[in-house]
Structures are given as structure tokens and as C-alpha cells.
């Protein structure tokens, strides 16, 4: 079992010895049930760190901000950033390393094993408790969670409230780390693509209807993109996050920038946005499920990425985020790659 005190002790030492600039972890929020990201700079603030089954966020995304900030600084602090990662999060780190977006020496990875469970889906939990307020939630001894409410403690089996991504997780265990807390789990999912089965059994028309309905809801708040550690482009097809204009950028270059997607949140534009995003994540998405979690309209975005993960697995035998030295899926070509889907 991961021992929170051990986590704090580790973090405190890192900060005391000034080995890291700061540590990105989880702390209690003020807005409800969910923890929030914590940026711990001083050893005494380590007390704020928490670890519980609601620590669902993938904090890897903040490495993107860190990199941008550092690029702007004249004399940046060269020490690494401490980052707390779960299994899936660690695979995101690997993808960023693989793509040379970050350097290994710029991060100090504190790995946390999800052991035999995983993290909790907030919505499932709220439903399960039918309005009762959660005071505390802990990992159970076996395969479940201990939830304390105002009416006392209940043990909830993980099958009821576990996040879907955790049910299908192929490694609840950090694959890259500098220090590791907890033990390597034994559980393997029966079928890592189980959630796709229902969708795959639908006809083409039914799927079309389903996605039309779902993507029609999208308000293009881009929270899905903003929370994704892989969506780090300065210039996205939909807008400009960090357009690098220099004295050499010509008016023509700016004028001819193609508008791939109009700002109007209408079905056609929403489709283009989401499909481009999905394709750009093929072989890169590590299924942390954050895009789906943050969507205010509950659009099941995970389906799209999961489907492409499955394609990558079946067609190319490619598992995402396990080996930072392996060439990435979309940037390499092999003689034996299947071609029969190219028409």
C-alpha cells in the first residue's frame, strides 16, 4: 500500500535538499469532492499533499506549461520539477520523452502504484451515494474502496465506482520513475478494449447517429484539448495558443494561415475538430481519460481515442508509452506494415 507519510517524507527531502524546483501533486480542493493540483515549493507545504482514490488528474500536462514558462525565462532554474504520477500518467511522460518534448533530466518522477484497484469515477461515486456527502475515501485492503459519509463507513467494490479507464488499464504501475511508492499489482484486465464492444456492435448508421448527437452538444471550450498532455502544439488547427510571430513573420504568412475549422460550434466544424484531435492522438493517447472527465457536456471522447489505441495495437502491435526509445507510431514506417486499409 502507498503510504502517504512516506510520500510526504520523500517530497520534503527533495525540497529541503533543493533537488527540485517544486513538486506537482494533489491537495484538497475547496469546491467539492475532488482534489486539485498542488504546486509545492516549500518543505513545510508538503503537509498539504494527499493521495486518495480521487486523485484522478493526470498532472503530466503541467510539464507543458513548465516548458513554455522556462523557454521565456532568461536565466531559468535548471533543476528538475518533481511530478507525482500513476501508471497511466507515467506513460504520458514516456510519450513526451519519446517525442523529445521534454528531457528526462528535467523531471524527477515520483511514481505511485495504483496497486490492485485504480482511481474512482466521480460521477459513478456520486450516483452510488445518492446525495450523501463523502467525507473521506480510501483504498480498501482488497479490491475496493472504503467510503466514509456522514452515516458512517461503507465498503464499495471497485467494480461499482472504478473509472472505466482503470478497469481497462494494462499497467496500473508507473513504467518510468525515480522513486516508487507501493507495490506492483497482479491484476490484468480481462479485455483492455471491453468498453468498445457495444459501440463496435452498432451499425455504421447507428454510430453516425450516436456521434452526431454527441458532437452536436460540444461548445468548443477546448477543455479536452487543454487538459491533454499530448495536445501541446503552440498552434492548433482550431486556434493559436502561442503563435510565434517574429520580425521575420510576413503578413502573407499570417494572411494565408489556413482556417481548417471555423469558430462556429456547429456539427461539421465540431466533427473536424474532434476527428483531427483523435487522429493526432493515435499512438500517443495513453488513455488517462482526462478529456472525457473534464468535458462539461459529458461527451464520451474516450471512445474515439480508445478505438484508435485498439487499431494501433491490432494493426501494428503498438502499445503506447512503454518505451521512450522506440520510434513513435505515426513517425515510422516498416516494410511489414499492413496496407490493405489504404484505398
Amino acid at each position, binding site marked *: 500500500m502507498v503510504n502517504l507519510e512516506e510520500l510526504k517524507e520523500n517530497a520534503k527531502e527533495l525540497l529541503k535538499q533543493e533537488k527540485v524546483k517544486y513538486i506537482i501533486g494533489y491537495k484538497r*480542493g475547496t*469546491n467539492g469532492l475532488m482534489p*486539485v493540483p498542488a504546486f509545492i515549493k516549500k518543505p513545510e507545504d508538503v503537509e498539504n499533499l494527499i493521495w486518495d482514490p480521487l486523485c484522478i488528474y493526470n498532472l503530466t500536462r503541467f510539464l507543458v506549461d513548465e516548458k513554455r514558462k522556462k523557454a521565456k525565462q532568461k536565466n531559468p532554474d535548471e533543476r528538475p520539477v518533481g511530478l507525482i504520477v500513476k501508471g497511466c500518467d507515467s506513460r504520458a511522460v514516456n510519450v513526451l520523452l519519446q517525442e523529445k518534448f521534454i528531457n528526462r533530466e528535467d523531471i524527477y518522477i515520483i511514481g505511485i502504484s495504483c496497486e490492485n484497484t485504480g482511481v474512482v469515477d466521480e*460521477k459513478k461515486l456520486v450516483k452510488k451515494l445518492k446525495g450523501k456527502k463523502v467525507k473521506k475515501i480510501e483504498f480498501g485492503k482488497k479490491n475496493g474502496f472504503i467510503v466514509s459519509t456522514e452515516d458512517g463507513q461503507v465498503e464499495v467494490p471497485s467494480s461499482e465506482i472504478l473509472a472505466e479507464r482503470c478497469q481497462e488499464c494494462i499497467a496500473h504501475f508507473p513504467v518510468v520513475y525515480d522513486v516508487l511508492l507501493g507495490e506492483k499489482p497482479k491484476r490484468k484486465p480481462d479485455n483492455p478494449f471491453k468498453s468498445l464492444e457495444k459501440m463496435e456492435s452498432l451499425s455504421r448508421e447507428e454510430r453516425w447517429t450516436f456521434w452526431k448527437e454527441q458532437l452536436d452538444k460540444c461548445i468548443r471550450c477546448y*477543455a479536452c484539448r487543454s487538459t491533454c498532455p499530448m495536445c501541446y502544439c503552440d498552434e492548433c488547427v482550431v*486556434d493559436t*495558443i502561442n503563435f510565434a*510571430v517574429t520580425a521575420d513573420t510576413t503578413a502573407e504568412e499570417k494572411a494565408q494561415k489556413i482556417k481548417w475549422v471555423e469558430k462556429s460550434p456547429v456539427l461539421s466544424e465540431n466533427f473536424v475538430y474532434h476527428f483531427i484531435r483523435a487522429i493526432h492522438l493515435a499512438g500517443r493517447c495513453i488513455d488517462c481519460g482526462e478529456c472525457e472527465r473534464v468535458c462539461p457536456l459529458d461527451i464520451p471522447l474516450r471512445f474515439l481515442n480508445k478505438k484508435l489505441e485498439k487499431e494501433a495495437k491490432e494493426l501494428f502491435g503498438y502499445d503506447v508509452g512503454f518505451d521512450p526509445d522506440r520510434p513513435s507510431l505515426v513517425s515510422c514506417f516498416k516494410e511489414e506494415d499492413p496496407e490493405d486499409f489504404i484505398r
Partner: protein
Amino acid sequence: MKKILRKKSFLQWVKRLESYKIYAPMKDDDFWNFALINNPKDLNLNHSNTVLSPKKIIFPQREVILEFSTSNDSELEVKEILPEEKASIIFGVRPCDARAIPLMDKVFGGDFTDPYYWKRRDKTILVGLSCNTPPSSNCFCLSVEGSPHSKEGLDILMTDLGDKYYVESLTKKGDQLINLAKNLFEEPNAKDNKDLENIHKDSEKKIKRQIQDIKNIPAKLKEMFESPFWDEESLSCLRCGICTYLCPTCHCFDINDEIISSSPLKGKRVRTWDNCQFPDFTMHSSGHNPRSDRASRLRQRILHKFQYFIEQYQNYQCTGCGRCISKCPVGIDIIEVLNKVENYGT
């Protein structure tokens, strides 16, 4: 006008209003959202806070401003496109969302009135529902001069009294709706009035969250413009559009030309919601960006709501609906931010 409507008569009342377009909160799996009601039977007023506020009906996320085209003899033609709206009623409006509408009126009124907004606004009737229990755990209307039974901005306020609704009409538009089905309404008796008062009083006690001392906030914010506070508070902000798009008072927009054909030219000028948390919102063509980091963008959101709007219109530009708090993916909490502002440096 004060009336009583039996719950069993509610459906009949709505049926009498068939000449109007009717919007009401509808449940979509796990959440509520305002939608056009085709069958009065679908109307259900047990909703928690809707994801989007009814602002989306009066100020839609996308609307066409004008169309342009060149004809064969290359004559350029520009056509104004104003919304042709049928009169509509929005049921189940929460008092905080209703209070947001007069704030929008100020923005879209003034020196240059906005015809697109007013075409819809003038034809919309707002029927509110007081919050006997807060529809969200992050409600804080009492801190921003509102209340769970505020009448501001509404044409009718309904309050659930168990098996009946207390229906108070506040405007001529509201009277009209009641007059369309006069026979369904009864006069309230002394007990009804007493119940109403108690329920309203009670509902205030159930609001759990609050801003400590809002009166000092605008002045305090003014002093804190340059403070490193904003860097700290915005560390985890993702620069997404949730807090602003979901906010009932945020009104910023973009205008773009969308082309259907480039030769002969045919297209539309479209206005869409935009927001101060997107980096390119303020980015000049030269690449210079006066608000280039998360800190300055969070500061803009808070200051617009709690300093600039007060300076301009003598109102907070926040009605305490709690959406930006509940839905922020990283838990940035406007109440907490303001409470910290209040205590900052003391």
C-alpha cells in the same frame, strides 16, 4: 399579481401557452440543460443547476450577423440577417440566472444597442423557480446581492409549496401568461403567504458558501493588479473555456467571416462566443499579447466581474450560480480566490 397553481394543473397551463416557444431544463443522462420543449409532458421542474445558463437562448453561441455575395456582374451585396423570433417562454429559470439577464441588458444596451440581442430579449418571457434547496453545492447568491428567491430579471417567480406552486407575476408579460389560463389559478390564502415566507427564509439558510466581505473587494482588487498573487492562483489553470462559457453573465464574443464559396463570393459574417481565457483573445496581429499568461487572464476574469463591472455599471458581474466553481477541471474556485484577496497582505 399573486396566484396559486395546483401542481396537477401545471401541465394544463403549459398547454394553453402553445402559441409560444417553450424552453425548460431537460435531463440528458447525467446533467440538465435548457432545451426546446416539444411536448409539455416533458416539462419537469426538479432540476439541479443546468450546465449552461439560459443566456444561450437569448445570446446564442453562434449567430449570423450578415450575408455577403457577389452576383454574376460582380456586384457586391450585403444583407443584414436579424433573428426572426417567435415569442418564447423559459421555464425553470433559477434566480441567479435570471439576475444575469439585466446585467447582459446593460452590456448590449447603452450607446450602441445590439439589435441581435434585443430581438430575442424583447420576445422572451422568463419564468423563474425559487431554489428551496440550492441546486448546486457551490451556490453563493447571497454574497453577491442575490437570493434563492430573487425576483430580479424575472417576469414570473414560482415557488414550490409541496402540492402547489405560488406564482407571482412581476411584469405585464407575466400577467399575460396567467391571464391565458385564468381559471387554473386560485387566490393565495393567508397560509399560502405564510408558507411562502417560511420557505423563502429557509432557503436562504441552506446556502452554504459565501464570500466573506464583498464590499471591500473592488478596492482591494484595484490595489492588487500587479500582485504576484495572480501567478500563484492561476498555476493550474488550463486556459479552457469552461468558466466563461458556462457563466450566465459572460458576454464576450468574436466576429468572423465564413465563406461558402470564394468565386463568386458567398459567405456569412458570424458572431460566436469568445472568452478571455483563450490566449488568442487579445493577441495582436504582431504577436504582441497584452495578456500573454495565465495569471493576467485569471486576473482579467476576476477583475472584470468584481472591479471593472462595478466601476462601469455599479453591479457585480457575478450572480453566484457556482458553475465556474463546480465545473472548473482543476478546481479554481472564485469564492476561495476572493476570500484570499480579502485577506491578502493582512
